[in-house]
Structure formats: C-alpha cells, structure tokens
C-alpha cells in the first residue's frame, strides 16, 4: 500500500509494509519506521514509532486531516485524492474572480454597487471577525456584476460576496 501525503508544499510517498494487526512498517524517503498503534478514542491514537510512544490527535476535515502532535499542528492531505478532485472540479467556467472572506465573518460595509467599475486593489467589502476588521479588495480591474451580500450578513470562506467581470477579453481565461 502506498500513500502520497502532502504537508504544506511537500508531497512525500509513504509506503506501508508488513501490515499486521495494529502494527506495520512505514517507509518515508530513506527512513523506515516500525509503527504500532492503539486507538484511544475517535480523535486520539497512541503511536509507538521505533519504540517511542506519542499520542496524536486527528480531526478529519474532508479535504485533509489536522494532526496535532506535541502541541504542533500539521494539515496532511492525500495528494492522489487532491489531484482527482482538481480534475473533477476544474474546467471551463471555473471562477477566478472571487471576492471571498479569509475566515467566517460578518459584513461591516459594502463599498460598491452593481455596475460600478472597480480597479484592482480597490476596497469592495469590509468584513469583521472577532473584533478584527479586514478589507476585501477587487482582484483585478473590472465591473461589478452583482453584490451578493448586505451589511450584517454572516459570510464564510468560499462565499462569493461580489461578482466582478474582468475587463480583459474573456478568451484569456478560457485559453
């Protein structure tokens, strides 16, 4: 069995050998690790790696797992799965013109209206989370097609707050 696992920008193959009941050998790069494990609960696994015990905590986020080890957190993704999903989701019409908040937030002010011409970097929406305000700017020169939010709305990362049509010719995006 082989996984290709990505942390930050680094993808490494992990080969699993001699998989027995709660025991196996993992080969990562040139290093081999003797692993045995005990499941403690849904989120906690006790690992013994080359004889050293450590408790790891896991939260499956769908697109990857958060793994906490000794106070440090790693976001580990299955590179093979990521590629499949990319192929599936990509294609013509994929949206590269997003105005979306970096975190769950509340809209404090909307600075543009439909039909407004905006320049790249121009403030379009101000959101606030936990007493910290963030200004979302236009990603390029363009025209506001639609404003999807109003002051007071709760918004999530991925929500498109304002649709902006790029002023450059559309062929560039499709090519």
């Amino acid at each position, binding site marked *: 069995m082989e996984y290709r696992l990505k*942390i930050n920008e680094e993808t490494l193959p992990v080969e699993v050998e001699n998989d027995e009941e709660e025991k196996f050998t993992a080969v990562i790069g040139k290093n081999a690790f003797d*692993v045995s494990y005990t499941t403690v609960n849904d989120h906690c696994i006790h690992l013994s790696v080359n004889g050293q015990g450590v408790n790891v905590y896991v939260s*499956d986020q769908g697109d990857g797992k958060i793994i906490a080890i000794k106070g440090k957190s790693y976001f580990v993704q299955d590179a093979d799965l990521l590629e499949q999903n990319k192929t599936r989701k990509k294609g013509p019409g994929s949206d590269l013109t997003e105005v979306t908040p970096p975190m769950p937030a509340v809209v404090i002010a909307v600075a543009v209206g439909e039909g407004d011409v905006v320049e790249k970097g121009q403030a379009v929406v101000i959101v606030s989370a936990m007493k910290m305000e963030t200004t979302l700017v236009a990603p390029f020169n363009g025209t506001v097609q639609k404003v999807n939010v109003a002051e007071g709305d709760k918004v999530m990362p991925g929500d498109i707050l304002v649709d902006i049509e790029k002023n450059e010719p559309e062929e560039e995006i499709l090519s």
Partner: protein
Amino acid sequence: MFKKILVANRGEIALRVINTCRDMGVKTVAVYSDADKKAMHVLAADEAVYLGPSEPSQSYLHMDKIIDAAKTTGAEAIHPGYGFLAENSEFVEKCEQQSVVFIGPPAKVIKDLGDKITSRKIMVNSGVPVTPGLTSTEADADVMIVEAEKVGYPVLIKATAGGGGKGIRIVNSSEEMADACSAASREAVNAFGNGEIYLEKFFTKARHIEFQVLADKFGNTIHLLERECSVQRRHQKIIEETPSSVLTPALREEMGKAAVTAARASGYVNAGTVEFLLDENNNFYFLEVNTRLQVEHPVTEMITGVDLVRLQLEIAYGQELTISQEDIAGRGHSIECRIYAEDPENDFFPSPGTITFLKEPTGPGIRNDCGVYSGFEVPVDYDPILSKLIVHAQTREHAINKMIKALKSYIVLGVKTPIDFLIDVLQSEPFVQGEVFTDFIETHFSDWKPDMSDADLARIAFVVDEMCSNRKAKRVASAEDAIPTPWQTLGNWRQGG
C-alpha cells in the same frame, strides 16, 4: 452575601466568575445572545436569560436588557467581567439608579480614570510618576514641538479619549509633528467623537509592569504584587507572569506603594490594576488604571493564594477587607498564556469555527480557565479568547517547563490557535533569560513559521487514521445495533465533508 448575581459577560471570564460564585453558594444568572445559545456559560449558570441577536449592541452591550434581566430574576448584583460593559460609567450609573449593585468601582472613578488627562492629573497631584509629557490637551503643533524637545524624541501623540490603539502616532522629529497631530486628532474624532490630543514620551525599550490593587469601602487599600505583561502581539498581551524577573524587593515595594497611592488618589473601590512602564534604567511611569478584573488576574491568585473574584464580591457587598498588606506574600512563580482562536502564521488573524475536539491539559500546578468545549462553534461576533492557561511552580524555570509541557498536551482541533507559537516563544533564549520588552514579538518572532520536525510522524498518523476509519466503516456496516449514533460526531462529519 448576595444570594444571586448576574454575570454580564460570556466565555471564559463568565465561567471564571460563576466558578467562584458556586464556591460561595451564590446563585448565578447568565445572559446570552443568539450565537451563544449553547455556550458554556449558559450551561454552567443556575439560570440564563436570552438577550437578543448576536451583535453586541443588541445583547452584551445592551444596558437596559441586562439590567432588566437582573430585576426579573431577582439578581442583586451584576459582575461585568472584562470588556463589554466593564468600564462603562453610564452602565454603572444605570445600575445605581435601578438599585442593582455593580461589582466594580463607582461610576465617577471609572469616568475619571478612563480619561487620560484627568487620570494623569490625579497621579501628578498625588506624586505618582507619570510618563514625561503634557497633563492637558493641546491643539497647537508648535507647542507640541516645544514639549517634545523638553522630553526628547521619540514622542507619542495620543487621543485623550483613546483606547484600542486608535488616535496614536509616534513622532521622531519636529518635521513630522504637524502631520501626526492632525492625523491623530482626525482618527480620534472618527473613533471617539472627540479629537483632543496630548503628548507623552515614547519608550522604545520598556517593560509593561502592572500592580493588582484592592480597596474596600472603608478606606483599606492594598496591592497584591506585580504582573509582567511585556509579551504582546497587536498591542494585546499574550503571555503574563509574576513575579517580574527584573524587580528588586526595593523597587517592588516602591512601585507597590505608588500603585496604592494611585488607587487612593482616585477614590478607588474594588479590584483594579495600575499599569506602569519600566524603562531600561528601572524608572517607572504611570500608564493607566484598568478599572476591572484583568484577563491575567490568575497569576496573582496563584502566587498570593487569594481568590480575587471572591474578594470583589465581598467588597461590593460592603464587607471590610479581611487581609492586610502584611498578609500578602508571593510564593513561587506563575505564568499565563492566552489561548485565542487565531492564526499565528498569518498575523494572528482570528480563526472562528467549530471546535471538533478539545482536550485540556491537567496536572498539579496547571489551571485552565476555559470557556469552550468539544462541539462548540466559536462565534465570529466576539473576542477570540478560548481560554487562559495558567501554571504555578516553585521557580521561573520550573514554571516555564511546566507551561511548555501543558501546551504540548493541550489539543484544540477545528480552529487555529497560537499553541505552537507559544511553545517556541517560551523555549526561546531571550524569554528564558527574561529579556522581555514590549517589542518582544516584533523583534524576535516577526517571521515565525511553525516547526515541521514531526512531519514524518504526522504522515504516519494520517495513515493510521485511514486504517482505523476503514475498520470503523466495516464495523458500522456489520453492526445491527449501530442505532442510535451520536449526533454530535455526525454533525462534525457533515461540517467537515
């Protein structure tokens, strides 16, 4: 003692207050907004009153609703915690009018100390050293230049009604003065509706040292030693400790006396904090008084053995202080780390969301004042503090090691926290040496990146979790008695998927 009080706050500080009330046999009333229907303070109180929408102005800042809630439930007093209405003199006046006891100082004290010029004047008049600079507002930039040359550059132009870092400019030379004054004043008008400004000396290398004070209604005023709070990010404290590693017994006594003088001079009653700057030559200067319980109050409790919330209630109820200055002695060393929902890799940006798993550190000498639990959704509407983690040990070295150990066993999944950042700070040479100034994080940790040394272990953990998940799935498929299944976990899966 009060039979019942209302806690006009949320999160960890509401829990902290409820905790002591429970020790004292005082019943508690929680208040909550839409976002907090399942919040821990609501689950912990004896009663809970719904205030309204999540927006603070419609809930935790809505004075009339809160006083109504106290009247309706028969609560005799209101504890404001910190933030929200804690330093709002109008709220205190309303409480007085409605015959509800406010657990904190009188309205006039809050008002006087909230205004920078008034508080500087009180201190100057009573002989407490203040940062060199003006004790009146000044509209003329040329006068500012004259004053700046007296105290020496750099200087700070500050709004008198200031707070939260707004209406402040650092000025390094006379050329910058005119622009800085008009900018600061303009910002102050926008933020506080009051454009008045003044000038103070700016200390580039200083420590933030504060003294806890307590005063009853009978004129007894004492201090409970210092807290050093120099490690700050975005002008907000993140690590606090006591004792300070630079205070000599003589300097501690001198500053403590100044703190008591400051409290007396302002007519202080209840618990408060007198903040000082300490420069590199061990000169100290009055900064301001925080007229409430501080986030960092537990380190004082750990080394002095007192319960500050209990004393707040006793004082508010009209009891005389049962401890005197001679009873106060520090024992051991205590450190607090604030655990925020924030991303230390990305300028400490807030990180709200659902806590999918929480495991608090435990053990001798470890205290975690926590306001959240596994499955709780941290709302976007309020301060991002999740908990304050406090340790107590015999020496500073032991306390640092205990805190590192505690942080390593503190698991918060689902939102980002500065736990790994804090571990690196506590292990760093300058922190261990006590070389801690208010610019500590900018100087030593501005381009911090999380250490990736256990990435191999993380990959192995991923593989093991996959193996377990497959097994889980198989079990479910074969188990007829799988119903009922926990809706909590289900919820998480949905949210994650």
